[in-house]
């Protein structure tokens, strides 16, 4: 597999990651969201492996395997169990005006492309072009966390942001040191578990996962 073909593949994967990010923003169903998230992790893992091959940075293989293990298998499984236990696995969440959200997302992508222009000038890597996509993925994750009301969808948005960060790291500087990777992965797991407990508490206190309920926590005067 020659370098040119590999970089082609990489950019294709980058665009798929962007697509899944958009999908996460506009998708209504819980299960579909989980599937999209898993796919995003999968694309991320493959592209990480390809970048490792391109840059000859072999620790990226490990981080790709980590991504595969955690973001494609473990986290979706945990979240799946979670939403089944919370009996929201069939829930359909209303997203505010999907076309408007899409347009917002497009604007964000353009913005991030504009933002990363100087870095593209500096960097010399084959993968520098995907940096904009990575930043856009982060922003879209953020957008998702903003537009969603449901706690589970918000953690998915959080994880999507983290995907974007990892992708940015791999594409900008052939990945961060392995230790950091491991740490991040561990953090994610812990975060997921903590989120899980939170959900239980939220849902037991308000018997709903609608974070707007939290407004009731502020003291009335």
């Amino acid at each position: 597999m020659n370098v040119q073909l590999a970089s082609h593949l990489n950019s294709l994967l980058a665009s798929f990651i962007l697509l899944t990010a958009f999908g996460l923003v506009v998708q209504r169903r819980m299960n579909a969201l989980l599937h999209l998230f898993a796919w995003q992790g999968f694309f991320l893992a493959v592209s990480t492996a390809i970048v490792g091959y391109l840059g000859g940075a072999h620790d990226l293989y490990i981080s790709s395997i980590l991504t595969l293990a955690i973001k494609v298998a473990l986290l979706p499984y945990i979240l799946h169990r979670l939403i089944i236990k919370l009996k929201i696995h069939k829930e359909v969440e209303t997203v505010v005006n999907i076309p408007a959200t899409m347009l917002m997302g497009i604007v964000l992508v353009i913005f991030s492309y504009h933002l990363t222009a100087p870095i593209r000038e500096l960097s010399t890597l084959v993968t520098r072009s995907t940096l904009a996509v990575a930043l856009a993925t982060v922003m879209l994750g953020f957008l998702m966390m903003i537009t969603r009301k449901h706690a589970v969808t918000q953690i998915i948005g959080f994880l999507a942001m983290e995907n974007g960060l990892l992708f940015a790291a791999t594409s900008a500087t052939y990945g961060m040191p392995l230790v950091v990777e491991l740490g991040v992965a561990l953090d994610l797991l812990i975060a997921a578990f903590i989120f899980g407990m939170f959900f239980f508490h939220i849902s037991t206190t308000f018997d709903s996962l609608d974070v707007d309920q939290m407004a009731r926590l502020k003291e009335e005067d």
Partner: protein
Amino acid sequence: MNIDPLIVEILQIAVLLIVAPVFTGWIKMVKCWFQGRTSPSLFQPWRDIVKLFSKDVTLAENASWIFRFTPYLVFGISVMAGGIIPILSMDLPLSAMADVIALVALFSIARFFTALAGMDIGTAFGGMGASREMTIASLAEPAMLMAVFAVSLVGKSTSVSQMAIVISQGHSLLRPSLVFALLAFILITLAETGRVPVDNPATHLELTMIHEAMILEYSGRHLALIEWASMMKLFLFAVLGIASFVPWGIPRNGELLSVAVALLVLLFKLAGIGVVLVLIETGLAKMRIFRITEFLGSAFLFATIGMMSYFMLE
């Protein structure tokens, strides 16, 4: 030996006229298989058309000339479009007659008159169909243009045969812009040719109709022309997709053997497209009309991502 391009043109139009109903028949057939039924014959649409030609015409009393003119115009436009899109060869004298934008505009004038014909007889159904058709069309148009934009960025042209030539050179399936443009194009085709989930071509319920509602009052040869033209439109969108995304197998010039091969390849591709179409139609249910905004919005999103990924990633 080389065939004269004009003969290839005539050949193409003949292929369009003959194969389009068979393509529709093939789709029906595959659908029947998927639903576990025995299908009618592959040529059923042909029989319907022939039967309709032999029947009388019953016109509404207040139908004006527009109502009678529309079927011929729609038919004529579909036939002309068959000479523009490269089906059997990329070297066509008429292919310079219109680029993709003009081609889309040709289809939209056909739609314009169909909608007028729907309003002509002054039934509520006709007006309803016209209103919905024009609404969906106006939502589909930006997505279509974006898809054209993305493809023309790669093809460095908006003339169909030029794009086909350029794209058939590079290994374009790896280009994100083309992949997304293809996704968008599929959604737009579903909307423009009135397939599930946007419109149900086999519906019997007037209130859910879009395209059918406009032609409810047509009969006899007029109906035959309109149905034939809509089959041709589906076929044309299919070959347009082939020419701009998977043009391999379409020869550069009208060399006899390669044209024959091209015909076979075309039939093969069409069979594949039919299966994909039926998979979509069996998998999805018809949408509420105000969900179509989101459907076409995502088509626009795909096309835009394609356009942007050309600048960002290629």
